[in-house]
């Protein structure tokens, strides 16, 4: 899919400020972003606003994007790797309506990419910003729901609880049973939730030339991984981190190295595997032609 496939451009709605948020709110969010960039992986509380999209649907990412976007930016929005899933369409329309910026589906053309659950397959470049929508910013929350406790664990870099959890996985199943939102250590200091991206994408965060910003609207936290920052997925010496691989290539573009979605094709067990990153898949197919 490319932009020419999109329906007619959405008209800019003059009733709202550029990118919806008022300038004071944007400044407050930019301050939180600056702090987050200064302390990689640290969750900065911010005065998250009610957005005209529901909490849990990307309000954190939307607020981050809204506070950094300018008229000359080129925006790409993906959900599950695809530009055309309804939530991605809705968020892209929201920004078209409130900013009238140029939108694209090409990873390489975008200056800002807002994403839910994937990192594009095409390596990101310096100068690009990847904005993640984050449902649960606290990597320790499932182990310790009280924020008073987890805050002190982060303060003391006391992450034994998470290591014990991973160890228990190995003891029970023989391997770590976390497949997405797989915890990472950022710059050797803060344990961070990479948002529910598959662990397949985790290595892309490491030493990434692009700025990575994470917005959690409902939980009112922003955090960041600045360009060229070390991001290590937790593992043990005798159980190194590993990512998912598929025994067959993408049925559409033939790629063997991208994350594949499984698609059910009939009710008799038929299935096929296709790239989750629609732009990557299309680029490969058009290059072949």
């Amino acid at each position, binding site marked *: 899919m490319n932009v020419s496939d999109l329906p007619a451009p959405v008209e800019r709605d003059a009733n709202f400020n550029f990118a919806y948020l008022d300038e004071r709110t944007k400044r407050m969010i930019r301050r939180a972003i600056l702090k987050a960039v200064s302390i990689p992986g640290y969750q900065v509380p911010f*005065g998250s606003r009610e957005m005209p999209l529901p909490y849990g649907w990307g309000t954190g990412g939307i607020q981050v994007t809204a506070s950094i976007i300018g008229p000359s930016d080129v925006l790409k929005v993906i959900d599950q790797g695809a530009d055309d899933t309804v939530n991605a369409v809705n968020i892209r329309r929201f920004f078209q309506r409130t900013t009238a910026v140029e939108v694209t589906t090409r990873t390489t053309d975008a200056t800002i990419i807002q994403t839910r659950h994937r990192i594009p397959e095409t390596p990101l470049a310096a100068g690009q910003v990847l904005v993640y929508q984050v449902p649960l910013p606290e990597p320790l929350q499932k182990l310790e729901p009280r924020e008073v406790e987890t805050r002190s664990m982060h303060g003391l870099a006391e992450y034994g609880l998470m290591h014990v959890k991973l160890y228990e996985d190995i003891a029970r199943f023989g391997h770590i049973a976390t497949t997405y939102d797989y915890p990472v250590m950022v710059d050797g200091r803060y344990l961070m939730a990479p948002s529910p991206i598959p662990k397949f994408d985790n290595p892309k965060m490491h030493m990434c030339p692009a700025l990575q910003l994470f917005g959690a609207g409902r939980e009112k936290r922003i955090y960041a991984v600045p360009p060229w920052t070390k991001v290590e997925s937790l593992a043990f010496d005798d159980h190194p981190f590993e990512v*998912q691989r598929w*025994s067959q290539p993408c049925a559409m573009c033939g790629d063997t190295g991208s994350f594949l979605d499984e698609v059910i094709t009939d009710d008799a067990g038929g299935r096929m595997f296709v790239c989750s990153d629609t732009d990557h898949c299309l680029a490969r197919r058009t290059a072949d032609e």
Partner: protein
Amino acid sequence: MYVAVKGGERAILNSYALLDQARRGDPAVPELSLEQIRHQLRLSVDRVMCEGSIYDPELAALAIKQAAGDMVEAIFLLRAYRATLPRLGYSLPLETADMKLWRRVSATFKDLPGGQVLGPTYDYTQRLLDFSLAAAGEVAASPEAEVAADPGPVPRVVDLLNHEGLIETHEPSPGDPDPRDLTREPISFPADRATWMQNLARGDEGFLLAMGYSTQRGYANSHPFAGEIRYGTAELVLEPEELGFAISIGDIEVTECQMVNQFGGSKSQPPQFTRGYGLAFGASERKAMAMSLVDRALRADELGEAVNAPAQMQEFVLSHTDNLEASGFVQHLKLPHYVDFQSELELVRRMRAPKAAAPGVRGRNGEAA
């Protein structure tokens, strides 16, 4: 051949049109006006204003109409609108002792200065369906007032108890610091009472009701008595910096509940009644009462009570009161999760078939895993 799911945008635009039709219903039936909603569904309007955190009956009526009567959706619409409004100033504390009362009841004293005033309440209506309303109903004539039209300020029950020192008082903290504004700064734990009051005030009525109810059933019993419930209008006073004196900017309808609770006393304090407080926009008695129960339960820590019931756990209660957050996150589960689910599929297959090859998936080194 599989074709990637497309047409999301067209589907969204079509859903707008369908929603419009569904909201309007049968076009042969006259359309609801905002005035009708505002005046004939006033309790809906009150709830939407309260949890929408903005006192504007007109906009609340619009939100209810647009949301086809879905309260949480209407609250969402109002909150999203509110988030873009500039903050012009902060009012002075509401003086509820000076309220013009439409209703005032106390469960603790048979009679008291100002009297018991039932006012407009469903409490004693016997809840029989009134079939005359199915046809155009005639409104009963206003009863003759039995008391003077304006009895003047009616003292609050807690203030009467305070004359004897039987109830705790709440002096402002030293320096009387401004409360944190929950809509500008995120909550952090432990939260102070001024902050949790804001949280409860915009909290979901149903959630607070269930939490309050749980305290009556043994989960943090605090022996509550409804010291006083009052409903009426209170004057909103603002003191703009550039003026230097206070001006009244209008009246708002509020419901206030003062719950009076037992407290055994401690080494340093004689036995005394404690308080739970609830305040809500409009005629929102259920909300105000539930709020006051939860407020009292949340004070367990301060009063040296054991914290072992959900309603006493600050992080648990305050993190889950907001129905926008709850509704959004629960319903986000209908968004696509193909990628996460694919990851889990791969894992479960791997766990179930350690030797046999799982369809389409192999381990890192290429061996069937």
